[in-house]
């Protein structure tokens, strides 16, 4: 117990106990994600990841990336929901809050009406144009004034997500969770995956031999072997096939490194730096979790009971994740597993079973020879 970021459960996971660094992590607040995908782009550019596929349109939503993978380390999910789904999400969130914890007053019509609406929400409620569309809220900022475009302290700016009654868009930037108990790290047979001094999980691409065990070991479906991936669209070039193109780290496992190369230089990951709404926050994991708790409480106080945290619980199946998320619906809606469990948790039991089975096989062989003894 040398650093405050480590709890008892994580001791077996090879943390750097005497590290000078705190555990780093993301807090992805999906309630203020605008789905711009700048994180996807920044990630690809910084890490020089090849493109996925052939720019096909998935046809299901504005998300044409699909999922995280060997070449996509940030993925922005996009979901459109009707009022029925919103109510369901609100209900499930409310239940979550009520699980053996102090209840939070559910939003009723009266309380919603009594609540003073402010910011974009208030503007939307009050200032309707003749066309029935909300006007742009007045930010009281003269954009032409000197210094107006300099980065300012945004902590006082209201970040309540607009609450539309009929439908809503959910946008969430998914990323490697950098689990406390990382399945991929546990099952890697070559030691190519390792835990860094920032308590993140990173692949050494010059060591990995592409056995693929980590792919199966990840309960979130993050890590993947880079079997394809092209720099240029194959359709562009008749003379070269996609497979011939220069793909870095081909045949090895690839995933988010939490920009390890930037962290060692004291910088923040590319996605967090580029995020225009600070939906992706980066910092010490403890701070991130604190911020997440504050934020969810704030949203609940505003009646948005659908808000919930994902990965902030150190007792969960993966010991808490380095990347904490604030979600506005059940995790599976975003393509996240509802109850992930590090696969190696059952390993002792499985080894024991395998041991018994092996002894049984020896016994069977012994008995087979005894049973056919010749007189």
């Amino acid at each position, binding site marked *: 117990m040398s650093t405050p970021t480590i709890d008892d459960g994580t001791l077996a996971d090879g943390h750097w106990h005497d590290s000078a660094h705190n555990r780093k992590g993301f807090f992805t607040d999906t309630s203020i994600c605008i789905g711009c995908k700048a994180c996807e782009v920044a990630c690809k550019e910084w890490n020089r990841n090849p493109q996925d596929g052939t720019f096909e349109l998935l046809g299901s939503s504005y998300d044409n990336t699909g999922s995280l993978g060997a070449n996509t380390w940030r993925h922005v999910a996009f979901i459109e929901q009707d009022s029925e789904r919103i109510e369901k999400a609100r209900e499930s969130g409310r239940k979550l809050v009520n699980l053996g914890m102090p209840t939070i007053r559910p939003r009723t019509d009266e309380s919603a009406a009594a609540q003073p609406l402010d910011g974009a929400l208030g503007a939307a409620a009050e200032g309707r144009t003749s066309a029935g569309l909300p006007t742009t809220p007045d930010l009281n900022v003269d954009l032409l004034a000197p210094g107006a475009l300099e980065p300012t302290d945004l902590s006082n700016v209201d970040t309540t997500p607009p609450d539309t009654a009929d439908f809503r868009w959910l946008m969430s930037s998914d990323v490697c969770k950098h689990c406390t108990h990382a399945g991929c790290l546990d099952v890697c*047979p070559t030691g190519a995956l390792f835990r860094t001094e920032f308590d993140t999980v990173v692949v050494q691409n010059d060591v990995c031999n592409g056995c693929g065990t980590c*792919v199966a070991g990840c309960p979130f479906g993050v890590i993947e072997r880079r079997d394809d991936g092209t720099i240029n669209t194959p359709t562009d070039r008749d003379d070269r096939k996609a497979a011939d193109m220069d793909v870095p780290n081909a045949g090895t496992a690839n995933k988010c490194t939490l920009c390890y190369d930037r962290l060692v230089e004291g910088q923040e990951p590319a996605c967090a730096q580029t995020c225009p709404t600070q939906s992706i926050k980066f910092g010490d994991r403890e701070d991130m979790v604190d911020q997440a708790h504050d934020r969810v409480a704030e949203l609940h106080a505003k009646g948005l009971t659908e808000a*919930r945290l994902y990965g902030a619980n150190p007792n969960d199946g993966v010991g808490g994740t380095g990347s904490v998320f604030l979600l506005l619906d059940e995790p*599976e809606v975003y393509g996240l597993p509802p109850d992930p469990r590090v696969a190696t948790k059952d390993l002792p039991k499985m080894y024991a079973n395998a041991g018994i089975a092996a002894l049984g096989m020896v016994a069977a062989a012994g008995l087979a020879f005894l049973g056919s003894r010749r007189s």
Partner: protein
Amino acid sequence: MSTSEYDSYRPPEPEGGRRKRRRGGRGGPSGPDGSGGRRGGRGGNGRGGGWKNRGADGNREMPMVEDVEFTSYYGRPIVKAPPWGDEIGAYLFLGGLAGGSSLLGFGAQLTDRPGLRIASRMTAIAATGIGGAALVADLGRPERFLNMMRVVKVSSPMSLGTWILSGFGVGSGVTFAIELDRITGEKLLPLGPLRKVLHAMETPAAVESAFFATPLAAYTAVLLGATAVPTWNAAGRNGLPYVFVSSASMAAGGAAMALAPVTETGPARLFALTGTAGEAYAMSAMRKRMHPAEVDPMDDGEPGHKLHRAEKLLIAGAVGAAVVEVGARVFAKKLGGRSSGGSASASDVAGAVAEAVGSAGSAGVAKRSWKTRAVLRGLSVVSGAALAAASAYTRFGVLEAGIESTKDPRHVVEPQRARLEERRACGITDDSITTGR
């Protein structure tokens, strides 16, 4: 139908009307469609569809997600399937075959059954060699396969498996070299004085190989179990190791039945029969304990076919093996028990080799009952091959069922939801990854 001047630009109406064609185009054989139907956005350029069926008969929107009991992100997979193809399936089978054969070879050495011993050791080394090559071939960077030996990691079944396979390979290789030397009349291998050393190592090598044999047969179950792939993980937690060692016994027994003479393969038959019983029981017990959504991939589609085929072959092979065993005992005299010489000396070996190869020409006993011998031998070969094939089908079936189970998020979400709700019902509310505050 209204007409307009732009009608001439329309493509010709398909035969039998659009509606009918559309149904035919989308239905198709239910193989990939069965699971794919849930997936959003696949209406685009699927086979038989083409642009004609894309809302050509009105601006009807393609359904993105069907109404299903569980929610998911446009039906996209949550967990990724490992990039493991047929090579891994082959290895699962060959690893078990090698392990079981090594046990049989050691037993045959101890009980003086040269035919069985040679056949088993040859099988073991061949299976090890081909299986190892298959493993290397399946790597993303095969040239780095030695990186597997960088670490010994208990938390990684793949790492332990590498060391088990290596350990097994050493003993197996030495016993193979000894057998090879014997078969070639101790002349071919240029060993010189080392020949004595080599032959002195027979028992230690056989023991070493037998020591790693059962872990080799069992670890692959843990390898599959220690993954996030729903069907494998559930199977691993509910007795897949028992299925796999049974399957290995079956494969090794079957291979020995097919390759060694009937008079010597009594232990192989019993071993294989124990394996069939074990697999039949362990498999059904495992299926019962798994969540229905985790078992489904083992029943449906190609993996389901394979596992069903494995069942049939298992039953057929077991019946055949039992008949051969009974026959061998009833007609023990006719078959002519082998000369009960005390120790396996070099002169014995030559005759055993001839027998092992299956030449029915060994004089003396052949005269009396070549028909009985031929029938039993034939049945032994067929049922042995059926048992080995059953084992292979089981391995491929389990491997592919797991890969299939990652494709539909239902197999991930439903069991996880179920166990989460179960824990909550028991009053455990502090271990969910989703928290309200």
